[in-house]
């Protein structure tokens, strides 16, 4: 049964994500986050979206997580960061948000379970996605590119000041 693959990937995703949220060391959490993203990519593939699965691996697990890895390595928190987190993070802090999220989850499950449907067993090929992307969704593509340009300028601004101050501090 191929549907078992979906449940295995879902279990891997949920357990890896739980570990991300609870880790004290940022680099450990990052590796678990990459595992979680790869498992989600498997689910995308099973849902008949191979192009989205490829994007998940290449852009999410590849590019965005590499940015995180760069920053974590650059800040070099290591043991100091773990000690800091241990000081901040008391077990009773999990109670409030956990209860609220649990209530929301129960509500969502109740709403979702009240209607049943299955996903269509068809693959949506990249060709079809591309035709729709550069046809009816052309304006959305342009808006996304403007958003990325704004983010580029913002990141350049913050990063440039950081590097300049570091250089002055070194002299």
């Amino acid at each position: 049964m191929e549907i078992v693959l979906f449940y295995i990937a879902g279990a891997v995703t949920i357990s890896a994500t739980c570990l991300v949220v609870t880790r004290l060391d940022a680099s450990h959490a990052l590796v678990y986050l990459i595992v979680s993203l790869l498992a989600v990519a498997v689910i995308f593939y099973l849902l008949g979206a191979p192009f989205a699965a490829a994007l998940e691996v290449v852009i999410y697990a590849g590019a965005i997580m590499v940015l995180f890895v760069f920053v974590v390595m650059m800040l070099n928190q290591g043991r100091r960061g773990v000690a800091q987190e241990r000081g901040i993070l008391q077990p009773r802090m999990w109670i409030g948000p956990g209860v609220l999220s649990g209530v929301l989850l129960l509500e969502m499950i109740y709403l979702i379970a009240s209607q049943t449907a299955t996903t269509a067993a068809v693959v949506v090929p990249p060709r079809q996605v591309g035709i729709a992307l550069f046809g009816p969704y052309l304006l959305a593509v342009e808006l996304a590119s403007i958003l990325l340009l704004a983010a580029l300028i913002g990141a350049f601004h913050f990063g440039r000041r950081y590097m300049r101050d570091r250089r002055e501090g070194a002299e």
Partner: protein
Amino acid sequence: MIAISIPLEHVLVLAAVLFLLGATGVLVRRNVIFQLMSLEIMMNACGLAFIAGGARWGAPDGQIMYMLVLSLAAAEVAVGLGLVLQLERRFGHLDIDQASELNG
């Protein structure tokens, strides 16, 4: 290539679990890097819900919305990590509560 019909509600429950795990992370953690990671988890859950919706109808629209979520996540991470660097430089640690003292 395989595409199997998976019960839609199971995928949506998985997306809801992931989203709420991310929300719990944002609420509980005070380290900015962990909060950014939790935001990534939440956006990824949104993408999963979009893909599930697209797969329900066999239409490409879900994948296109997923791509837009992806570009939003990339933009958010770029600016967020720039802010993390500034925060670390000014205060020497990544406690989000210290960000209330940021100005200029």
